[in-house]
């Protein structure tokens, strides 16, 4: 019997695993991951991780930036805990060997980042997530008692009477379907960007953890808040990190004009100014793009309209020193060199602010079930996450969830429930049936594409009530059609089609919650902009959306008050002092 079973080997999952191993070496902790841990999507994070380290900075200022960045939808107690613990977590990473970039005197270096009033973003060149994940992964190797289920895909949480008892998972390599009993489960399965057609997210980011919890009755929170990052490469959606703008890059339209000045984001300065222009928050920058497009000031390409990111004035030296990966990516995937060419970019789905509803320790309403990382919604990101807050978030709340789960596992040493076996059996039969294959129905990929385009059309940067309402129907219909799809792979060994099918069903449910929440929120706030309700409405909607799965499988949305401690809702001001 496993004490703490962690689903997900990304930053949040690994941090949780170490926390458990350090809290109580007697506990049995396991990490189940559908890819080898170091392949998790944390590896792609580029820009950096925020944590106050002095330099005239204070915790309160980081709190304020985060809360105003999130358009006052953050739970402020969670933000305060997060901001207070983030620096320790980043130092902890340093003590584990993370190669943070340095000042000449040997201290860690920090860079500016969007929406942040002070320089507080720690970075490892522009491969921060890569170094962070590999440092964490290699550090877990030190704890040889951590059990790893690499390339196991969790398809179901075993929940009985409001308490979690383990998971059902498929071992990809052999096709073995196992029930893994556990006293506590931590979901750390990352985001769900793949619900959209054009995203910076990796193939594995299908929102599994959210759906697993949701299906067992746990509510999801704030699912309408989907972050568009303003600078993705047009064909692939590969991210050009915000660090490129923090180092001094400019966004220009087809006339070479720094258009952000037209959108209440400040006035252009030759060097970057904090919380201004290109260093504004992502929601505002992505919205500005849409307006430019409507004004006909974007450039049309085969992959949609673009503006340009101009790094030429930074010079080769600075580009190579601070953002070498940007150069590498542009060269490989766009056939251009940012030292001499403009980079075409357009907004791209990047991050999910919403997720499984948890408290400040990662606990969900299901007893023994915790969630951390992008899959969770502790509510530090509110309506719009600030760049470089997510990496420290996965560390802080990964650790917190780990400690809380360990504590729970120690005090609740119950016996294995019978239901575990029967639920496991049912799930196994279901999967085996799916693996028998089917020659009728549509292709998984076709349904997936239709879902993605539905979401892009309805739940993009700007949303309209009637389109959302139509999307509700379309998604319901797609879910219906997804009951019978063509499955050609019937083998047990590394059957990735079986996984794609599970992911399709999961994404459809997640898509429904996104659309339902977006339809329900009749205001504009942060990343959620309604064309039919253009103003923020604190009286009605200074509240989280909480979506439950109704017995008929459809989402049912309610509201939950926001926790305000010290920062009453105010106006979001960027570029004006």
């Amino acid at each position: 019997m496993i004490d703490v079973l962690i689903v997900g080997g990304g930053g949040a999952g690994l941090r949780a695993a170490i926390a458990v191993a350090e809290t109580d070496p007697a506990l049995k902790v396991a990490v189940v991951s559908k890819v080898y841990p170091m392949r998790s999507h944390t590896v792609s994070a580029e820009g950096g991780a925020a944590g106050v380290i002095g330099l005239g900075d204070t915790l309160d200022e980081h709190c304020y930036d985060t809360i105003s960045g999130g358009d006052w939808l953050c739970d402020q107690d969670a933000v305060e805990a997060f901001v207070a613990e983030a620096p320790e977590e980043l130092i902890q990473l340093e003590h584990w060997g993370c190669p943070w970039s340095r000042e000449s005197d040997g201290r860690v270096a920090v860079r500016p980042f969007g929406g942040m009033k002070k320089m507080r973003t720690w970075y490892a060149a522009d491969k921060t997530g890569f170094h962070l994940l590999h440092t964490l992964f290699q550090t877990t190797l030190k704890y040889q008692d951590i059990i790893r289920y690499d390339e196991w895909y969790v398809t179901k949480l075993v929940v009985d009477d409001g308490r979690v008892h383990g998971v059902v998972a498929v071992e990809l390599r052999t096709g073995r379907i196992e029930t893994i009993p556990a006293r506590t489960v931590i979901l750390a399965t990352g985001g769900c960007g793949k619900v959209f057609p054009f995203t910076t997210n990796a193939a594995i980011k299908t929102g599994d953890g959210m759906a697993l919890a949701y299906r067992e009755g746990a509510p999801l929170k704030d699912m309408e808040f989907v972050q568009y990052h303003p600078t993705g490469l047009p064909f692939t959606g590969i991210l050009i990190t915000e660090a490129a703008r923090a180092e001094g890059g400019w966004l220009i339209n087809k006339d070479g004009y720094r258009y952000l000045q037209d959108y209440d984001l400040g006035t252009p300065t030759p060097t970057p100014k904090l919380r201004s222009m290109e260093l504004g928050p992502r929601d505002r920058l992505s919205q500005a793009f849409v307006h430019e497009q409507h004004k006909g000031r974007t450039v049309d390409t085969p992959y949609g309209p673009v503006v340009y990111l101009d790094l030429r004035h930074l010079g080769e030296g600075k580009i190579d020193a601070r953002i070498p990966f940007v150069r590498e990516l542009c060269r490989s995937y766009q056939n251009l060199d940012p030292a001499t060419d403009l980079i075409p970019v357009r907004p791209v789905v990047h991050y999910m602010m919403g997720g499984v509803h948890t408290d400040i320790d990662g606990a969900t309403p299901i007893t023994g079930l915790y969630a951390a990382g992008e899959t969770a919604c502790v509510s530090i990101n509110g309506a719009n996450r600030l760049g470089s807050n997510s990496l420290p978030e996965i560390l802080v709340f990964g650790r917190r969830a780990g400690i809380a789960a360990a504590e729970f596992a120690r005090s609740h040493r119950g016996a294995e429930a019978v239901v575990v076996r029967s639920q496991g059996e049912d799930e196994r039969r279901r999967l085996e049936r799916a693996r028998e294959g089917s020659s009728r129905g549509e292709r998984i990929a076709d349904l997936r594409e239709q879902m993605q385009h539905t979401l892009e059309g309805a739940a993009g940067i700007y949303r309209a009530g009637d389109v959302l309402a139509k999307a509700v129907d379309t998604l319901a219909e797609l879910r219906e059609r997804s009951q019978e799809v063509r499955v050609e792979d019937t083998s047990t060994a590394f059957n990735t089609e079986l996984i794609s099918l599970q992911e399709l069903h999961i994404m459809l449910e997640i898509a429904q919650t996104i659309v339902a929440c977006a339809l329900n929120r009749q205001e504009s706030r942060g990343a959620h902009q309604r064309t039919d309700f253009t103003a923020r409405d604190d009286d009605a909607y200074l509240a989280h959306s909480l979506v439950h799965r109704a017995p008929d499988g459809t989402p049912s949305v309610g509201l939950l008050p926001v926790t305000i401690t010290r920062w009453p809702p105010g106006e979001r001001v960027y570029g004006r002092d």
Partner: protein
Amino acid sequence: MKAGDTSDYRPPRDNLWFARTRNYTIFVLRELTSVFVAWAIVYLLMLIGAVLGGSLPEFAALAAGPWMVAVNVVTLAATAYHSVTFLNLAPKATVVRLDGYRLPGWMIQGGNHSLWLVISAVIAFFVLRGFR
């Protein structure tokens, strides 16, 4: 965590691996220069033996045999190839830092090759003329 599933495919040993890519072939050729290094030493020992034993003319006659010349031409090529590759690869093991700035490989390589030329010249000088 594995089910002991033995149905993986394990490719058999590829006995012609060194012919699969140009680089492998170059590598094997590089390694095979060692045979000629050994031969050069044997030849050198024979020469020394002849000098010390006073039978240099006989040795010269042997050395002039067409087969011998052919072998030695190949040996020359092989040892020269050895020199180039070995001196080029040497900087890999030695990372030289000056003031935190890493000395680029080509500088070390250039140094090595210059040294090679100088030593060759010195040896030739002593063999052919010496200080009389």
